[in-house]
């Protein structure tokens, strides 16, 4: 029974995809192209939900892995003539290796130094994209082929959306299984109390590096798919703003549930379309850059009000705190206890982190 429920949820989820496509065009802003962006963002951010929600780490450089996937796909298909599918896989492998190396280097740090290190990594990666010849510098890279399975080419937005939607469903299912596995329990234990987890025999560095790698794979896959969909990529799509977008998606959607990124991505894409299309009608000369106000305000409001995101708050309110739907009760409870201003140590150590 409890084993069937997530499967049923995923099947229901897969059915929503074609339904959304049917509605596309009838509701304003609900276009197939927006749906693709929504699904890609949700896929990439699901990886971030795993990293942030379950192991309690903050990554401010998630867009770098999105970028590694995209540029690996672009370079291998355009320069070396590889098939897109193979390039996607190689991109995922490279992202995993980079994430493992980065993880091993930074997870010795505790607390927010990790967030800072991932931020620095993301920024450095962004500048490399603009600086190197192989990435095409600031001009970016074009002529990237569309995905193809044999003679079936993913040319239209509709096909692309269905493909990404299925991958998203599989991704969420895998994320759920990761969280529910023995490793996942170690992961959640690490997220709520590193010291207690370490005392129970959990190798916290290995667990954290592991989830960081898995999270990076999601971003890389989404990035590769993005490159094969738009066929032209430039550094701007992989900078700090994109990392912040992923952060908003994961946080606003909810960090306590693997479905959070989907809620968050719908929110972010909705806001961005709304500000791009509606605000210019009222404010003269306004452009899409106004959307950042909405992101920022939403991030502040949600974090101040809920601490753990919308999806989580809804699940709480509905009271469906069943094990399959609600995955990190300990972490949520931990966040409520103690105060920050009143008990913040000047430099946070692993031991003090546990007190919160």
């Amino acid at each position: 029974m409890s084993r069937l429920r997530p499967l049923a949820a995923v099947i229901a989820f897969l059915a929503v995809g074609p339904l959304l496509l049917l509605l596309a065009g009838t509701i304003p802003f609900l276009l197939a192209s927006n749906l693709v962006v929504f699904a890609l963002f949700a896929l990439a951010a699901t990886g971030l939900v795993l990293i942030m929600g379950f192991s309690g780490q903050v990554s401010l450089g998630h867009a770098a892995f999105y970028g590694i996937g995209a540029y690996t796909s672009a370079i291998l298909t355009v320069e070396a003539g590889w098939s897109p599918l193979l390039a996607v896989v190689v991109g995922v492998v490279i992202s995993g290796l980079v994430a493992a190396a980065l993880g091993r280097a930074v997870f010795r740090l505790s607390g927010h130094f990790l967030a800072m290190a991932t931020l620095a990594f993301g920024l450095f990666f962004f500048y490399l994209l603009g600086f190197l010849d192989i990435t095409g510098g600031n001009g970016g890279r074009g002529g990237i082929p569309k995905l193809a399975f044999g003679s079936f080419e993913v040319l239209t937005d509709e096909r692309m959306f269905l493909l990404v939607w299925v991958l998203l469903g599989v991704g969420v299912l895998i994320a759920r299984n990761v969280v529910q596995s023995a490793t996942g329990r170690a992961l959640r234990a690490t997220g709520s109390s590193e010291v207690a987890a370490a005392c129970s025999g959990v190798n916290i560095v290995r667990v954290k590096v592991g989830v960081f790698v898995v999270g990076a794979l999601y971003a890389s896959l989404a990035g590769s798919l993005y490159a094969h969909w738009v066929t032209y990529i430039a550094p701007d799509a992989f900078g700090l703003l994109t990392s912040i977008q992923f952060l908003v998606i994961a946080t606003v959607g909810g960090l306590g549930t693997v479905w959070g990124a989907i809620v968050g991505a719908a929110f972010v894409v909705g806001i961005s379309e709304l500000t791009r299309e509606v605000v210019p009608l009222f404010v003269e000369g306004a452009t899409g850059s106004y959307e950042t106000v909405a992101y920022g305000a939403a991030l502040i409001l949600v974090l101040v009000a809920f601490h753990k995101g919308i999806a989580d708050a809804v699940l709480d309110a509905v009271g469906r705190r069943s094990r399959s739907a609600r995955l990190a009760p300990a972490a949520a409870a931990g966040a409520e206890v103690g105060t920050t201003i009143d008990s913040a140590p000047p430099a946070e150590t692993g031991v003090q982190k546990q007190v919160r």
Partner: protein
Amino acid sequence: MNDLAQLLATGVTLGAIYAMVGVGFVLINNVTGIINFAQGEYLMVGALTATTLLAAGIPLAVAVAGATLAAAALGGLVERGTIHVARSASIETLILITIGTSITLSGLALLVWGVTPRRYGPFTAGPPIDVFGASISRQSLWVLAFAAVVAVGLWWFFERTVVGKAMRACAMNPEAARLQAISPARMSLLAFVLSTGIAGAAGAVLVPITGASYAMGLPLALKGFTAAVIGGLVSPLGAIAGGLLLGIVESLASGYIASGLKDGIAFAVLFAVLVLRPQGLLGRRLASRV
């Protein structure tokens, strides 16, 4: 040789700017444990407020004071409205809130001041001054003087005043500070007001050199943060030293290697310091392993 002197002079000016931002990070981090990513936005608010006041015909000194007050008031409001309300959340959540504040403030500034960068002339008119073969603009001297005043002022505040000592006590041990009737919540507010006030004034001093635009905050915040990290993130004087070091390294790298490398070098330095010496190049070793 003249090249070197010129690059060093540019680096020191750049470094003084980073130092001003870095000091703000340290002040807030020391008392609250929070990395305030919105730090650069208060410089932006100070810079743009000063341009508006000057454009309205208000004298320079009053405009700079107005920019300082505007940024400090905004900083206090943001602290009360976000950080104080959410104070029971984890440090990571509070840091994310400051990221939200950062993009909100720069977006709001875009609504208020528009996209076009603004600028006003140097505080004192005149040709650049020649020092050891390097020509230094007069505004650079204002920046350096301002940085020196902030450095001395902060030293005096933390070492010689009761409030400053109370803030240090809070940073060392909030529980013990409470037992001495020091309110960590009030110290948090004070840290935000002080830090954003300094940022606002720094913004006004910067305008003749960098201009003022809604987007100037984040890049400055990242450089200032790097400066603070180099200094160990706990000492204001360390942040100033870190800022100067970063400014000089950037200037030399863009002068002798490639100008496109400037920002990349800063972030590579940030990453290397965080991974290899998280206590900062100038900091002492912290016990952080469990």
